[in-house]
């Protein structure tokens, strides 16, 4: 439904050329929710803005619904854009129009009659639970309500594709979930294809089918979401997952965390139970077998698309000579082990 082939984007500024996107290749299937995650400045907005040519790529092909957008005339491009809905981080509603008239905007632009507009808008108001807010102005709405208006507006011209540029980044976690639920819901009912970008792993986790990581303008990893969480390939992916699954270490440990081993310290490990390995037996096993004192600092088991995945942070204390064999034992049971750092023994954990 959406294909990007060898897309490059350079920005020319007075200080020189900024390569924002490098050789991007993406294929989003019809009816799929495809997420792109990346840190701030990775080029996410540039990428999604290239899809409807709000930003022209420096080179490469962009094909949406079998049309190669880069070759279209201005008029044809406008027609193609009507079939690509877009929602934004800051909603971008017209403050001069009430909810109904905001949703009517794309229809007015396309020259629909008032009757046609009403027939389109009323069901959309219902779908987005805004029927009672029909006459309200954006200034009178909450963030979540504004984004729902924006979604209804994006759907008004019956697009094949919906682009979402950090649509939940300005919302609180609870509202974020309702918006993501709504996106999934409209994908299912309208068979829409959704391409979204985000810097939050929770967004990927709760609504995407596939995900790609954008890092400094390059796509470095792409996978089906369940696979992505259970078999992350790159360090960047692992960090994204860890940051989404685990909170920070307790402050007392974080403060004293050393990067290298020193006398009278013990390691803090991050364990990844990726293949649904049961966590508890293994932990008690190594404790008994190697006579180690194990303190579980954090543990989390997540179910993503039917894959169970656990991440655990533990402090391992005991005879130094026993620690390496214990780690080896874990690895043999396909637990991924990562040494986060070392903490002096005299720190109470």
């Amino acid at each position, binding site marked *: 439904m959406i294909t990007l082939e060898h897309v490059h984007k350079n920005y020319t500024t007075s200080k020189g050329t900024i390569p924002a996107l490098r050789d991007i290749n993406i294929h989003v299937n019809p009816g799929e929710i495809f997420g792109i995650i990346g840190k701030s400045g990775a080029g996410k907005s540039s990428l999604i803005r290239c899809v409807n040519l*709000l930003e022209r790529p420096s080179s490469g092909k962009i094909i949406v619904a079998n049309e190669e957008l880069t070759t279209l005339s201005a008029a044809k491009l406008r027609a193609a854009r*009507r079939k690509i*809905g877009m929602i934004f981080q800051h909603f*971008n509603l017209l*403050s*001069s129009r009430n909810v109904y008239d905001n949703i009517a905007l794309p229809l*007015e*632009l*396309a020259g629909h009659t008032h009757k046609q507009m009403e027939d389109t808008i009323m069901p959309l108001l219902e779908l987005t639970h805004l029927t009672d807010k029909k006459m309200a102005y954006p*200034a009178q709405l909450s963030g979540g309500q504004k984004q729902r208006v924006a979604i209804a507006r994006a759907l008004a011209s019956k697009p094949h594709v919906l682009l979402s540029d950090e649509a939940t980044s300005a919302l609180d976690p609870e509202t974020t979930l309702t918006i993501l639920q709504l996106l999934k819901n409209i994908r299912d009912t309208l068979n829409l294809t959704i391409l979204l970008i985000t810097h939050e792993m929770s967004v990927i986790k709760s609504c995407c089918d596939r995900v790609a990581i954008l890092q400094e303008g390059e796509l470095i990893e792409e996978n089906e979401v369940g696979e992505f969480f259970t078999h992350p390939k790159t360090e960047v992916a692992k960090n994204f997952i860890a940051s989404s699954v685990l909170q920070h270490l307790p402050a007392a440990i974080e403060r004293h965390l050393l990067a290298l081993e020193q006398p009278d310290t013990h390691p803090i490990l991050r364990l990844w139970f990726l293949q649904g390995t049961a966590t508890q037996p293994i932990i008690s096993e190594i404790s008994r077998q190697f006579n180690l004192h194990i303190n579980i600092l954090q543990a989390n088991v997540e179910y993503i698309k039917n894959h169970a995945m656990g991440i655990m942070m533990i402090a391992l204390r005991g005879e130094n000579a026993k620690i390496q064999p214990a780690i080896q034992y874990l690895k043999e049971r396909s637990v991924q082990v990562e040494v986060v750092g070392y903490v002096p023994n005299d720190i109470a954990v």
Partner: protein
Amino acid sequence: MFPMTLLFNATIETVYMVIVATIIATLVGLPWGIVLYTSRRGNILAHPLLYQVLAIIVNVTRSIPFIILMIAVIPLTRILVGSSIGTNAAIVPLSLCAMPFIARVVENALLEVDSGLVEAATSMGATAWQIICKVFIPEALPGIINGLTLTVVSLIGYSAMAGAVGGGGLGDLAIRYGYQRFDTSVMLITIVIMIVLVQAVQLVGDKLAKWYAHTGQ
């Protein structure tokens, strides 16, 4: 004894001059301001040369003092209204003076419009003209109304100046009675009327701007 009819007629003349001059100046200044804004670098009709030319005309015309403009355009006034004295004649310099002012005011109001809205409209397949009509003007309307209010208030002052050189209106009356015949009461009354006019314009302008801002309060 107050020359009541004179006062009444003079007020009508002032209101007439200001209203007609504002309408003419808006008809030119509004599109001028829109072109000024949209021809800026990076905007929907980006045209750096056109922008430069329009901006220079605005700056040059705005730096001419009104009293000089009034005299300088007398030949033009004669061509347009057939005479260089009278209320209609005063409308020519008043409109000319307000045009670049309105252009700037409109440009400034448009600069306040969030660029995200243009992006949203573009993503819906809007043409440049549709963006101007459906996004820029309605979104900038409160700012444009505030600017027009400012213009009208200035024009009330300038119309008094125009009156002094035979344009009629309250300024004319104040000078003929108050200054030349030492009738201070007429002078005071004209000032009071001007203050009331300015207050009324400001009040209506503020109310309209607030109404169109749709802030919900």
